């Protein structure tokens, strides 16, 4: 975990710098002379974040942490392929949601997810349209909560 922690400390430190630099571009407001403008709180957060990331980094340099020989690849490795495929499916699904509507796009997504997860039971593929229809019924008809209609209207 030591290497991952060093990486995490670096990421958080970079984020704190990003927040601080971002606040430099905020336009000053009338109460900025009391340091209480829009930048006040994000800068406070950035300072605390930077300090904490340095503490995390320092902890990794202590002798008891040095014995840890773990590598980043122990945690971030090939086993992430399926989650990555799920995320990729969503990257396709979200634009389709507005075009095809909730029912069609979600039914397709459900089936695609089952395929990605390695499903071999044909009956499971029927759950997609049934579950989506149930959700559509509960939200749209029962509670009158809108879901994306798309070109088909549901």
């Amino acid at each position, binding site marked *: 975990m030591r290497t991952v922690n060093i990486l995490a400390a670096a990421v958080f430190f970079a984020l704190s710098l990003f927040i601080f630099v971002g606040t430099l571009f905020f336009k000053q407001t009338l109460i900025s002379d009391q340091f209480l403008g829009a930048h006040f709180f994000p800068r406070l957060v950035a300072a605390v*974040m930077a300090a904490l990331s340095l503490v995390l980094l320092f902890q990794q340099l202590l002798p008891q942490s040095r014995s840890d020989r773990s590598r980043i690849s122990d945690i971030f490795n090939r086993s992430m392929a399926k989650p990555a495929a799920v995320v990729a499916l969503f990257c396709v699904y979200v634009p389709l949601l507005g075009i095809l509507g909730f029912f069609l796009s979600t039914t397709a997504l459900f089936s695609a997810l089952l395929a990605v997860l390695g499903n071999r039971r044909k009956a499971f593929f029927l759950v997609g349209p049934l579950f989506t229809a149930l959700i559509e019924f509960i939200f749209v008809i029962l509670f009158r909560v809108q879901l994306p209609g798309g070109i088909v209207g549901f």
Partner: protein
Amino acid sequence: MFALLMDGLRSVFSLQVFPTLFLGVAGGIGIGALPGLTATMGVAVLLPFTFGMNSVTALSMLVGIYIGAIYGGSISAILLKTPGTPAAAATVFDGYAMVQKGQASKALSMSTIASFTGGLVSTIMLITLSPVLANFALRFSAPEYFMLAVFGLTIIAGISGKSIVKGFLAGTLGLFIASVGLDPVTSYPRFTFGNIDLLNGFNIIPVLIGLFAVSEALVQTEKLLSEAGAAARITDSKIVSLKELISVLPTMLKSAVLGTFIGVIPGAGADIAAFVSYNEAKRSSKKRDEFGSGCLEGIAAPEAGNNGVTGGALVPLLTLGVPGDAVAAILLGALIIQGLAPGPLLFTQNAPVVYGLFGAMLVGNVLMLLLGLLGIRFFAKIVQVPKLLIIPIILVLSVVGSYSMNNSIFDVVVAFAFGVIGYVLIKAEIPQSPIVLALILGPMAETNLRKAILMYEGSWSFLWTRPITVAFILLSVLSLFTTLRMKKKA
């Protein structure tokens, strides 16, 4: 007062009121259990149905939904790691851990009984202590609200897992996320990059769904590889025993009282009450090491705390006309629609309505207990659905839950972006809960800190010159100190 309460209870058991209250509680449980449908939304959506009803019937139905929905949020939080409402976010830690140990029925029964206890205690406090509690809440101003938020943030130490530093780093990430959008004081757009959808900041629901539900679905996807398939999880049907109940009773009662007090303070809702109660239970428990790994106290505390808010939030509403939270604000609208003016005179001029409402809350909590306990066998079946199906179901519910709050596809994108962030954080052993906690408390902390400094003309002296802020500082130090000591021992 006792005679009035009896009259109120009599009116609740009438043929006109009781079925509506029953429908309200049952509907509320369903609404709360569905991610994306909050108690506020449920009460708001069903408010128009009450226009034709008399005052007691209308208010009974609305408080029934409120009570049911706050409890219902825990069902999906426990079974699917997807909090149905933000108030159930703290229930995830131990609830889901118990499900993984095959104790879904026990977790659900604990949450039902704790919710009932929280609701009942807060209703009794509402009936008996309304004027005193309202006066206490009136003493809260910007400095006190700021310190309440800081006290809330010290909870991070307790929910940080192995590394407190990582927990607080996640907390600062949450505070940064909370600062995105229009500045609450000057309305200057911060970190929006010209995106209109970001002007209102990140909606809590999609972030919550992303960090808990989507990330968990991604983790389960990865585990499917190693577990070779679609085996369903095994769960026993044992509910919580009397002995176990007695052992968590002090925690439930303490959390219920805490939840009621937090509910009384306008702006501090059920989500904050749940986290504060969880932390207090962990801090004072003999089994504090077991928190997070599936212990009953870890469910009892947040559930009694969040349902404690239901009565507390009505105290300032009924006594002063000031709503304690968003649901109470809608109830204020319902009272006005019914031609009633909330405030001290309400208790003298419209006593039958007020005590009818109190009666409905008492009976509503009992109905919630019965419906919850009877439904456990049915709810627990969800756990037995094969993982292969549960993962797409969670992901589809995440889409609906994040979309339905604002009818926004952008919120769906936010949920999945935070899902990926949550997944990476799990891999790096950085806890996600501090992000949610900071996101809830961040706006409260920022707005009130800036207001307090302005009130004191640039000075920070409000921290040591006001009794309630000093009390909160001491509580925060005590909370941090005990957590650090506890971690050191562990």
